[in-house]
């Protein structure tokens, strides 16, 4: 008789718990995460959210700093294109994200470790799905162990200025 076990049961279990730092904008993604809470959705506890007013506030150095201090992944959440509370901060975030992704790739940090998502205030389920997805992907990659000094991150961060 055919019944199917949940997908996660099929994936090999690992004791490694990724640490993911998230930067959520105050108006969309942070609200969506709040809504996920009021809707009692369940997702992986590996994420630590830092609230910023806008995804445009995410300085590349924040990302590098997080990786340098032991984050296995960094997640940026902003409003959908055209929906930014500050008109176009998320476009700036996107440009920086694209540049920074290249820099990170050169440094040997896998693409799955750095993620940008547009999540509106209503899309609680996307928070749930994106966090779970990212945690699983990073779990498969294993720990990052990316050790650079603060000074280095500052220099690298300066490469990505928009």
């Amino acid at each position, binding site marked *: 008789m*055919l019944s*199917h*076990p949940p*997908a996660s049961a*099929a994936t090999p279990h690992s004791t490694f718990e990724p640490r993911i730092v998230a930067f959520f904008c105050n108006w969309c993604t942070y609200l969506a995460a709040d809504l996920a809470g009021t809707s009692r959705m369940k997702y992986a506890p590996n994420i630590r959210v830092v609230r910023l007013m806008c995804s445009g506030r995410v300085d590349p150095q924040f990302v590098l700093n997080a990786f340098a201090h032991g984050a296995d992944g960094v997640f940026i959440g902003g409003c959908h294109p055209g929906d930014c509370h500050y008109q176009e901060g998320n476009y700036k975030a996107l440009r920086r994200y694209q540049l920074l992704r290249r820099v990170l790739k050169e440094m040997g940090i896998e693409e799955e470790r750095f993620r940008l998502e547009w999540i509106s205030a209503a899309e609680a389920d996307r928070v749930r799905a994106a966090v779970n997805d990212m945690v699983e992907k990073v779990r498969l990659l294993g720990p990052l162990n990316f050790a650079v000094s603060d000074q280095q991150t500052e220099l690298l961060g300066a490469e990505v200025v928009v």
Partner: protein
Amino acid sequence: MRYAYYPGCSLRGTGRAYEESLVAVFRALSVEIEEIDDWNCCGATTYMSVDELTSYALAARNLALAERDHTDIIAPCAACYLVLNKTQHYMREYPSIHLVVTRALGAIGLTYKGRVKVRHPLDILLNDVGVEAIAAKVKVPLNGLKVAPYYGCQIVRPYATFDDQRDPTSMDRLLSACGAKIVRYPLKTRCCGGSQKGTLPEVGLDLIHYLLMEAQKNGAEVISTVCPLCQFNLESFQKEAGDRHHPTSIPVLYFSQLLALALGAAPDSIGLQRGFVPIEPVLAGREITYA
């Protein structure tokens, strides 16, 4: 245009005319088909009620064989079309099914990566060949032959993407291009009873009768089908259903027979002689002369 051809069991039996006419149509339109090497039964829906997992493995063997040649599959039989597509969907949706099927294929040295598209001849003719190209090759226009287009269930539901699920029109468009007149047929996607005629005869007869009656009421001279089981049911039990309810006499053809006719094929070569309800009076009345 080259495709892997998956005839399925019925096209080698009761549905022979379907295969004969399809081959003629494809030849006339320069569509190359190559029969999948050593294909096996798709499992059909019947198998699923006995052992669902096994039926996916059986279906997947055909997909894997076609994938070796990197071609899309043409599956004319509605049941085969559905089962092959369903297998694709389930392999994607359920990791456990994917695992079972992959292992079973591995046991006979096959792999399947999900690259094959399972397509129906209607889809190929409409989207790859095109209505204009077909219209340009019509040699014997159907001269306003009144056709009720009957799609049945499993071509449109639940997986077809090439046509509207509620109101499919692909066959209408192809036959119109050949000069046929499509009559309104609201029951075009209603079930013919499938294999129930064999297992629960009374039930099957009712369903068959509704379909025939409605076609006749709307002035159809011919019913055009896309499925060997629909064709068989509507034709073979027409008299029986008529005895029970109200007599009808409508030839039931495969859409490919009508297309082949318009493209100039000889009636004997496309299985017109295999039908039980005589077609000649209708064709003669419409002054459709064979090429």
